[in-house]
């Protein structure tokens, strides 16, 4: 059974999300290529997936782990690609709250994400920023 999503008030700097398993499976890769339309030929031929597909999986895993309120806006994204992920590969995503600013009308949260292979070699690193609604 999946764990209860973390509430925004508990997302303080240093909070580490439970590691998430990212399965780079054929169905999801095919859906990704349908959505993005332009990169199929290149990546299908190499047996890898577009680098942003890994970012999408990591973001989804993080999204499932926390209960962000309606009105939360994804305001910025940084990502660094270390190597392409291969179809069928299972990766591990580790995310941690790196910054929280909750002052007046500002309620900002940054989350750092590291995706690695089972040997712990990096595949992708990212930093995501959200603005949460103020009460």
């Amino acid at each position, binding site marked *: 059974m999946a764990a209860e999503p973390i509430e925004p008030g508990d997302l303080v700097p240093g909070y580490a999300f439970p590691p998430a398993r990212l399965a780079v499976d054929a169905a*999801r*890769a095919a*859906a*990704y290529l*349908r*959505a*993005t*339309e*332009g*990169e199929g030929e*290149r990546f299908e031929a190499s047996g*890898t997936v*577009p*680098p*942003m*597909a890994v*970012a*999408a*999986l990591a*973001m*989804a*895993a993080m*999204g*499932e782990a926390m209960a962000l309120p309606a009105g939360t*806006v*994804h*305001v*910025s*994204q*940084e*990502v*660094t*690609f*270390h*190597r*392409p992920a291969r179809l069928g590969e299972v990766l591990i995503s580790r995310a941690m709250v790196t910054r929280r600013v909750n002052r007046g009308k500002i309620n900002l949260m940054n989350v750092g994400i590291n995706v690695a292979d089972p040997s712990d070699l990096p595949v992708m690193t990212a930093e995501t920023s959200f603005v949460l609604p103020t009460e």
Partner: protein
Amino acid sequence: MNVMTIHPRELKPGDRLPALTRRIAQERINAYAEASGDYNPIHIDPEFAGKTALGGTVAHGMLVLAYVSELMTAVFGESWVRGGHLSARFKGAAYPGDTVTVSGTVTKLEGNRLTCDVQVRNQRNEPVILGEAAAEVPA
């Protein structure tokens, strides 16, 4: 300029990357939801989204950002997927029916690494994403 014929070795500060244009369609947004697992109704439920301040469904920001990565892959090839860096701010929503254009301008060449300002704008020239991308120039 054909995106497939340009070689990053030929690029220098001030040069523009070839533009990439994509049409936002609800079917593609739905496919992205399936791929990413992000089924937020603001992306896939027109009835729900119509009642929000956005007035309708919008594409996932990460879907539009994927188009930036697509352009960089076309220009830099393997160098992009092994060492490419992208920093982006989401400035506006992309709606089904919109046509977005990804463009980029080289701003810096440091050693073997090229940095480009990148942007995604809709058909009204409104910014959807503004950012910066960098990658090594492949040999």
